[in-house]
């Protein structure tokens, strides 16, 4: 266990935000979960008692008749905003006094940094470069992330859970978002920051970053396993595998979705349903391809003269 190495990575100034992000995320997930549970309990209670449902104020916070429903922005909101500004300023000041922004040697195109890393918030995308060609990891994926985020309000047809924390009423939506945000985005950033060392090789936390380490690793393409040699056959084979993933995967998701989420299924139009399917399967394809690579050393699934996937 190389504690020195661990400390060097954890305390690198530009990595501190990620180290801070982990407990911050933990805290806010706890905060959301606590309120979601209180709301879910309240829903169960109200669904079992129709009379109470008619009179209850329907929040997990107390409310008594006679209490004002609204409060003045001045001072009740503005004091919070003012306080937040002061606290953020203090945090920023203390952070800026105690930790210096990194400054390396002058830019030198002839001396490659090893590892050469993108800013920490893009390290998830850089980690994707291991598993996909740059045009997918660097261009298609970011575009899909942005478009995928933008279609969310138009494909989520569930009217429940608008304006309050809940888990039971939106299991699919929240589960998918947590998978995308925590697993595919934050976890990938953590891998890219703390696990990937010189040569973008995998170093476990505490393992010394050995710049001379060589890994003898032969990556093979999926068609090679099946002994396919001609280019045309490889292209057709890959198209069948990728197409088959979307078809079979789509069928499995369909079978699960209509069983466990019948109301959403009923509400969604064909277009909405198809969009959700495509994005969900593409999201799942990410860890699937990672597994293929990390466990079975498979580089490409689909090989064509123009692009490889």
């Amino acid at each position, binding site marked *: 266990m190389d504690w020195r190495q661990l400390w060097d990575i954890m305390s690198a100034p530009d990595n501190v935000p990620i180290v801070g992000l982990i407990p911050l995320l933990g805290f*806010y997930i706890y*905060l959301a979960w606590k309120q979601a549970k209180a709301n879910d309990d*309240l829903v169960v209670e109200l669904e079992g008692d129709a009379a109470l449902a008619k009179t209850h104020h329907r929040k997990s916070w107390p409310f008594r008749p006679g209490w004002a429903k609204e409060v003045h922005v001045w001072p009740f909101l503005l004091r919070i*905003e003012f306080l937040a500004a002061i606290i953020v300023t203090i945090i920023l000041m203390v952070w800026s006094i105690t930790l*210096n922004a990194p400054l390396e040697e002058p830019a030198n195109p002839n001396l490659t940094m090893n590892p050469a890393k993108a800013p920490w918030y893009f390290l998830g995308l850089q980690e994707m470069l291991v598993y996909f060609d740059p045009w997918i990891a660097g*261009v298609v994926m970011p575009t899909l992330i942005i478009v995928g985020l933008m279609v969310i309000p138009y494909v989520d047809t569930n*009217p429940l*859970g608008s304006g309050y924390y809940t888990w039971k009423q939106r299991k699919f939506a929240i589960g998918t978002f947590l998978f995308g945000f925590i697993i595919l985005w934050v976890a990938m950033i953590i891998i890219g920051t703390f696990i990937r060392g010189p040569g973008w090789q995998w170093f476990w936390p505490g393992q010394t970053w050995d710049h001379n380490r060589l890994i003898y690793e032969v990556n093979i393409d999926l068609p090679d396993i099946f002994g396919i040699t001609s280019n045309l056959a490889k292209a057709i084979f890959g198209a069948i595998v990728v197409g088959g993933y979307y078809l079979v995967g789509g069928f499995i998701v369909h079978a699960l979705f209509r069983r466990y989420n019948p109301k959403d299924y009923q509400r969604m139009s064909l277009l909405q349903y198809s969009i959700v399917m495509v994005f969900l399967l593409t999201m799942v394809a990410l860890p699937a391809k990672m597994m293929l690579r990390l466990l079975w050393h498979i580089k490409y699934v689909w090989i064509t003269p123009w692009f490889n996937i």
Partner: protein
Amino acid sequence: MADENRKNGDEVGVLERVKSGIKDDMQSLKTDLPAKAKEQLDGLKDPTKTQVYTSIFRHKHDDTPRNRALGVLSNVFLHLHPAKINRDSVRYSYTWGMGGITFYLFIVLTFTGVLLMFYYHPSKVQAFRDVLYLEHDVPFGKLLRNMHRWAAHLMVIGVWLHMFRVFLTGSYKKPREFNWNVGVILLVLTLLLSFTGYLLPDDQLGFWAVTVGTNMARATPLLGHEGPLGAQLGMTPYNDVRFGLLGGSIVDANALLRSYIWHCIGIPIVASIFMIVHFWRVRKDGGISGPAPVMLAAEADKPRRGPKAAGE
């Protein structure tokens, strides 16, 4: 003689009049000034009555609900807020305050960024030296640069957490779909702002981060020279999308200048415009989304009758 007398008499008359006039002036100094001074001092006891004050603050400051509302509504910086909000909307556990904190950090970054611009030349000869100068010679220069750096990172985290909260509370749902989209664009702009700033110190860290980042643009399908079908469309390192981003085929002086202009002028202006729309839409779409009364599954497909139906 007669002429002379008249002349003398006139002179005497003028002298008398001047004398009595001065006497009156002296008298007025003695009586009026203290009176006016007293009036002035009395006026200072209540500055809210002065013309200067009333011209700035257009309403009274008495502790009445009306004045509390006016205090928010008649202030250009505060009037984004409504006068009153739901009692639960101020709960930090619900809002997390991340949208506001992100905006505040944007202001901090603008302020520290403008100060940094005084010491920085976006040229290969000067840029790195300017950062050294800033760190070692400019009073509080190091603190300034640190604050700008860490505020930028905090802003990225703030945007993520804000989006996370908005998702978890289902706040993108009708009628806020469009504002969620504006928010997604602001997320992208925040990341681009941070990324363009990364190159500016012109050190190894920024240089290689931007090299890695923009190398991906080589592989853009159709528009990059290494991307699928790029070569077939006549893309070379000297005319593809990466060339457009860097102003050259390598990260060099033009890339530094382009980063600088996008970072300091281009993206902040675009982001400000989207922020204006974002904040305006928060109000137009009915203020912040909640905390709303919980809805039961049985009511889901019925038109909602509003919180009053729920007995609130």
